[in-house]
């Protein structure tokens, strides 16, 4: 404890906790820091052995020997990194797990549900088939599904989908007429289980020609969506495109084709692939984007590493002024290329005079520069270009551009404000001298 009791009391009594608003964060942060300091000051007294208590907090009260951690260890071990092995040794991984506390309960719920003791009990077929109420807790426990099958061939469509929903093996082969197949599909759809709908669709896809399948699905939207998703997942791109073509969904067709480029790693192949996308029936605006995408890749390949003029890119891709300036500004500021920043806002008129212009407004320029840690001299330059006097003063004060503040008050002939500002600059600094010089100047006719 390095504070005396008196200190602490003084601290707590003097701090007032006000409602928080997001704009006076300085205040709140300092408040937070105070609390933190106070808490940290307790540390010497508190810190000792049980450092990792927190990792074990768990509302069910059980200690968790992390599985995720263990898997990382396996990976580290098989990857045979030195570090990994060291870690393994020091935290004596697998060998020591047996020493971890045993699970709190030896009483097994599953044995209760199965109505018998745990280890490897085998159930007779008749047991498994009788629908005892208890089984619904854990419907599949105790009956590995492959072990019994129902070869009955005369399940009705509704019985069939119900069995499918339960995950039971169930032959669909007897649904041979189109009518039977469609009835089966409709039963599946009306039951709402997507897994069953897909199961029936897999069967239909295998036993119907694609024209017939597509035709029937066109008027069954729910089933159609399931088929589309299924084809996407298993990656049957050819059938998917055929389906979109059949449905006359040209835009989806184009997008689906375009999506494939995401899986192509090689830049040249990717570019070639994009070329095949250019003529596809996208919407008018997307067509332009695809064309741009292709042009971009083409250019990236050509310029590789050589200089490419940003202005040229801006023209080719019709990048709006604002977007261009924001991007270029952030990029140049990061590189601390202040001359480039300057050039970005300099325009020449026909007489050759230069003028500063910013399509985003100089107040934004200042903020962006500040975010990129621009020095005060640079900030100052742009703060000065802000037209609105109040905004200018605000920014200048916020970013401590003293010269701008002082000059502005001088121009406003505001003696009071200047006097007030004097207390904010460092004692004996050049700024203070400048203010003093101004205040004692007889040249200025102060308004107050």
């Amino acid at each position, binding site marked *: 404890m390095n504070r005396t009791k008196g200190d602490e009391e003084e601290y707590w009594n003097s701090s007032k906790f006000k409602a928080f608003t997001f704009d006076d964060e300085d205040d709140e942060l300092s408040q937070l820091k105070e609390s933190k300091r106070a808490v940290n000051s307790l540390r010497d007294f508190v810190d000792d052995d049980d450092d990792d208590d927190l990792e074990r907090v768990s509302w069910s009260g059980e200690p968790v020997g992390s599985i995720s951690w263990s898997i990382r260890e396996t990976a580290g071990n098989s990857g045979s990194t030195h570090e990994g092995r060291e870690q393994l040794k020091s935290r004596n991984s697998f060998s020591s797990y047996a020493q971890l506390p045993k699970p709190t309960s030896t009483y097994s*719920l599953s044995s209760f549900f199965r109505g018998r003791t745990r280890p490897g009990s085998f159930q007779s077929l008749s047991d498994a088939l009788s629908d005892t109420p208890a089984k619904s807790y854990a419907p599949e426990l*105790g009956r590995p599904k492959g072990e019994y099958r129902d070869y009955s061939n005369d399940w009705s469509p509704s019985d069939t989908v119900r069995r499918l929903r339960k995950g039971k093996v169930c032959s669909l082969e007897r649904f041979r007429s189109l009518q039977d197949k469609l009835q089966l599909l409709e039963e599946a759809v009306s039951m709402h289980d997507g897994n069953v709908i897909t199961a029936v669709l897999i069967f239909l896809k295998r036993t119907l020609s694609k024209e017939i399948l597509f035709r029937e699905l066109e008027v069954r939207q729910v089933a159609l969506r399931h088929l589309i998703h299924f084809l996407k997942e298993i990656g049957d791109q050819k059938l998917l495109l055929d389906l979109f073509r059949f449905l006359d969904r040209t835009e989806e067709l184009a997008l689906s084709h375009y999506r494939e480029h995401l899986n192509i790693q090689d830049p040249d192949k990717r570019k070639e692939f994009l070329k095949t996308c250019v003529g596809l029936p996208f919407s008018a605006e997307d067509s332009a984007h695809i064309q741009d995408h292709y042009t971009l890749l083409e250019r990236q390949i050509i310029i590789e590493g050589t200089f490419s003029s940003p202005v040229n890119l801006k023209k080719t891709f019709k990048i709006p002024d604002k977007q261009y300036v924001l991007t270029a500004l952030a990029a140049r500021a990061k590189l601390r290329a202040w001359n480039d920043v300057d050039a970005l806002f300099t325009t020449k008129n026909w007489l050759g005079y230069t003028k500063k212009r910013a399509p985003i407004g100089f107040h934004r320029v200042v903020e962006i520069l500040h975010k990129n840690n621009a020095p005060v001299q640079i900030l100052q330059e742009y703060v000065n270009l802000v037209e609105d006097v109040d905004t200018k003063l605000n920014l200048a004060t916020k970013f401590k551009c003293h010269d701008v503040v002082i000059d502005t008050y001088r121009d406003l002939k505001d003696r009071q404000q200047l006097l007030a500002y004097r207390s904010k600059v460092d004692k004996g600094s050049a700024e203070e001298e400048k203010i003093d010089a101004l205040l004692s100047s007889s040249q200025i006719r102060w308004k107050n």
Partner: protein
Amino acid sequence: MAFPHRPDAPELPDFSMLKRLARDQLIYLLEQLPGKKDLFIEADLMSPLDRIANVSILKQHEVDKLYKVENKPALSSNEQLCFLVRPRIKNMRYIASLVNADKLAGRTRKYKVIFSPQKFYACEMVLEEEGIYGDVSCDEWAFSLLPLDVDLLSMELPEFFRDYFLEGDQRWINTVAQALHLLSTLYGPFPNCYGIGRCAKMAYELWRNLEEEEDGETKGRRPEIGHIFLLDRGISVSDVDFVTALCSQVVYEGLVDDTFRIKCGSVDFGPEVTSSDKSLKVLLNAEDKVFNEIRNEHFSNVFGFLSQKARNLQAQYDRRRGMDIKQMKNFVSQELKGLKQEHRLLSLHIGACESIMKKKTKQDFQELIKTEHALLEGFNIRESTSYIEEHIDRQVSPIESLRLMCLLSITENGLIPKDYRSLKTQYLQSYGPEHLLTFSNLRRAGLLTEQAPGDTLTAVESKVSKLVTDKAAGKITDAFSSLAKRSNFRAISKKLNLIPRVDGEYDLKVPRDMAYVFGGAYVPLSCRIIEQVLERRSWQGLDEVVRLLNCSDFAFTDMTKEDKASSESLRLILVVFLGGCTFSEISALRFLGREKGYRFIFLTTAVTNSARLMEAMSEVKA
């Protein structure tokens, strides 16, 4: 601060039973493959598994080594391989490549695939096509309800959202129905059921089917939970409910989720939070006493609370001055441990707050929130649009930019075509042209649309109506209906008073309504609907709202006689979110519960937030 529950608030059922059930099922399944085996676990299942079992349990059941399922050849030399996976095609291909490589090398081993929470026929089809059907045995581990907290159950199925709301695939609906069935078997029947949304209705019907088939089990049981409320994330065809999930979160738990990402109930606090050189994985739940008191608070109240706490802690430590030996002994043996624990938690949450503050200050959070509020209230649309434009141009964050565009689109019933084109173009130029696939997804899901000029809309409508007149076509597709039957966020928010009128400042310290979770600017639609329906015990008088939500066919109630339900159970409400819920919604309902003497229990397919929603819609390189 940290509103206590009312003294008459009902007790929550004990959900830890679900963990034991899942663990015992897993043990049983592992025993089905007797002898030593290596276990391959899918990455997404690792955190949930960590919450119910540990390595020693696996070791006890002869699991030798653990591997992550990833696209790499397996180094395992074990004679038995067990795979614990989600039912995904890519997992089947991975397993097939392993098995087929073994076959080629003339090696025979035993393989077992355990699907969690269930297997899909499409997976079996792939096993068949790859020629390994029969070589591997398949099982299901019906682990679909993970208690993340005393009042929060998660199915840990984030893919539910994309599968259903984007692709229209209903594969998870049966999983939800099974989970509800399990709950009613364990905790008794639910006397009152309410729901809204197409998916909610389907899940409800399938669940009812299940109960009928296995009739008799829940009969005679005393209900422990009096009400169940099912609702869709984007309340079916309307999509306006996405607004809630798209807003920046400002209650502590939500903010922690937005900033650090809470994963399966725990969060990794990096060195910037722990103020040491290591990261710390921390469970966030009611057991953490400090967290529990601030989790539902608006962020602005959190500092004051933590300072107060720090002061109290200091005072408690100070008591030891002037203690005699005996008192000191008592202090050390009885109080010190608790104080130390509190001290650790306190410094951790102070660190988290500090880090949040730094990040939010850097990204001009104030201005962002201002824009969101303007969008919600529908003023200064031009200004907001150019704010978003600048956000894109400065390449602040692809996900954030997308989120703001969606918020603009939903609150304004679509972007005007000129803005849509210009924002999209700039977005593609800022973040990559392949995102035009993302835009296509968002349009299909109704999250980001273009206001159709008159003739385009008619064309779409005529195409849709052609399909609709065909009786077999049934319902219109979601995609078209989101275009043709636009919902109106403004009308709904007016009707349900979602944007409270406030005279003067909204006092966030003493919230008057659920809007406090968004700084007083907006009451989450889902929560308001639940409040209204519970008040009426039906949808009566809410016809206009239901109509505006385009849910006339998908709002339902089902009440049974309540004679068996205790008055306590009738104040317990299970809310089921299909497609995910946010911590803000959870906080809002906890607040409502305290006001009305209810307690809410949350069941969600996954905890979500705006970033997760946007990522689910994004198409980028694999």
